[in-house]
């Protein structure tokens, strides 16, 4: 296999600027890196470093002002809202700091949500979601509502949900930010297991302990890559 085949995505000279109160803010000033399939990357940086902007662009929630973001052959900068929605649903698995589960749905239904937007419904979907719930250790909580779960459990539901579409990579945004150290470890263990199974993981974080568990750390400062090191 050539390097090209193994690339999950590639960003080239990525820039993103906003107009705020008549001023142009350059949040990203030219960021380039490749991510290979199976990598476990932590993206770090102080607030204002462009972390969140990079997350939004990588998550296809936002488009770069210039530069290229190649995800499985598509340049995200040229896609419209519909295409971006499809990519989010098919190629990216989101894990958020505040879990972002839907309160009116139970565990199984929450895991199923991304499948519904791909038109995958029926008993096969049910089996897959149940399997994923078991994989994150919630096989006995299938019909619980998010409010009936602890933070760690909720985050594991969110991780199961991020896996359901078999995405190109998991994009975790401060995924352990709301958790205590014990559950943080549990969740990080889960990420590690997933990575060992071949999942590509991009973890946005500002905690060194979390970054230490990853295999590669990209540090941002003032919209540029400060360092890119492998653990």
């Amino acid at each position, binding site marked *: 296999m050539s390097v090209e085949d193994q690339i999950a995505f590639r960003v080239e000279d990525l820039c993103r600027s906003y107009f705020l109160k008549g001023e142009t803010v350059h949040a990203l000033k030219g960021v380039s890196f490749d991510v290979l399939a199976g990598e476990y990357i932590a993206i770090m940086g102080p607030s204002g470093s462009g972390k969140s902007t990079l997350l*939004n662009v990588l998550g296809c929630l936002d488009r770069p002002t210039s530069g290229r973001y190649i995800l499985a052959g598509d340049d995200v900068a040229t896609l419209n809202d*519909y295409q971006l929605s499809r990519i989010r649903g098919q190629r990216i698995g989101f894990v958020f700091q505040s879990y972002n589960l839907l309160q009116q749905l139970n565990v199984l239904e929450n895991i199923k949500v991304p499948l519904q937007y791909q038109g995958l*419904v029926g008993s096969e979907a049910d089996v897959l979601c149940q399997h994923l719930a078991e994989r994150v250790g919630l096989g006995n909580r299938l019909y619980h509502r998010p409010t009936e779960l602890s933070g760690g459990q909720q985050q594991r539901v969110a991780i199961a949900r991020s896996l359901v579409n078999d995405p190109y990579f998991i994009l975790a945004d401060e995924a352990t930010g709301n958790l205590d150290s014990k559950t943080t470890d549990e969740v990080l263990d889960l990420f590690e297991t997933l990575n060992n199974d071949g999942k590509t993981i991009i973890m946005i974080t500002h905690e060194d302990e979390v970054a230490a568990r990853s295999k590669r750390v990209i540090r941002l400062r003032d919209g540029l890559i400060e360092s890119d090191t492998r653990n």
Partner: protein
Amino acid sequence: MIFQFFQTVVLGIKSLMVQKLRAGLAALGIFIGTATVIWLVAMGEGVSFRAQQQILELGARNIIVRTKQPNEGEQDAANRVKTYGLLRADYRRIVENIPNISRAIPMRELRFELRLGDRTADAKLVGCVEDYLALNRLEMARGRWLSSRDRGKKVVVLASDTARRLFPFENPIGRTIWVGAEFYTVIGQTRDRTASAAIGGSLDSRDYNLDAYIPLKTLRQRVGDLVMKRVGGGQGFNFIGEDVELSQITVEVENIEEVDETAQIIETLLKKYHEKEDYAVVVPRELLRQAERTRTMFNVLLVVIAGISLLVGGIGIMNIMLATVTERTREIGIRRALGATRTDIISQFLIETVVLTASGGLLGVLFGLSVGPIFETLKRAVLTFSPESLPPIVQTLEPRIAPWSVVLSLAISLGVGVLFGVYPARKAAFLDPIEALRHE
């Protein structure tokens, strides 16, 4: 595809159930609007159905020519005896000159006292011909109806109430009674027949149960055209007389298409021989058309009123959905991140709105369909406590559900859902996913 739609509907119901009271109140507006359409239209249809029944009883192929007391001129007022109305000559002229009529039935009626011993009945004495029975849908209770052989004979057929007053216990057939100053033999008795209500200004109401029918020829020979009445009090008696030959001629036209034209011809014919307007030509078919027009107008009015109430309900729905969208901004952001396209979000909220209005609409339809029993119960309850409080039209009113009103109200309630759901749904779909995700 269908399964997915079904899932979205289930999701919509679930989301609505989160705020049960709010959803219920929002749907209430639609419920009331839908039920109002069906109720109002059913009431209107009930009223107009009765009117139509009565007009139909008069016969769609018939033309009714009635004697009418003319407006009094100055000299007339001085006359003790008033001569007016349809003439036997009119009858002859109609029969002889108008070819396309299948039959013409003359009739003369007047108030008259019937007596048997000390029992009296202030009846309406009707001089008629054999066809009168069929024309007015009368049925015999016992005995027989007048036949052509009875013309000129002193025989009488009593209506049900008349017979009851004179013969409370006995069988009247074969007995003799006093009609004015002469003996008549009772040969038959008719069944009870419900009175017909007045139709507009053209026809008075007619109670058939206090009638006494004798052959027209007998009436003319024995009673005559001139009838004296005692009026007023004061000193001595005052008498006025009415000299009327015929009260009514019912003309049946062969072909229903020719009714209007024939009525015109009759009117022209009569005008030639009558100085005063002492007759009226009533065309039931025309009345029917008028009633139909009135009904349509009435229905349009009702639908407009109900439409306004549905509109108000729809605004309530929109208000609720806008609040819902704001409250669920974060959910919208999450769904967008998980791959929902704008169309997905629009259909989610649109379906939710339609589920809301459709459930209100369906319940409204169910309540609307039960208008018959509910109205009956209400009516009975009111009548028990104060029997006089309801006007007769309401007492006899039976709501008739119009199928189109059910379809229409349901369609409108769905339409309201779509119409007032589009804006909130679009608002939801065009939220910036990043902003929405950050929303607390």
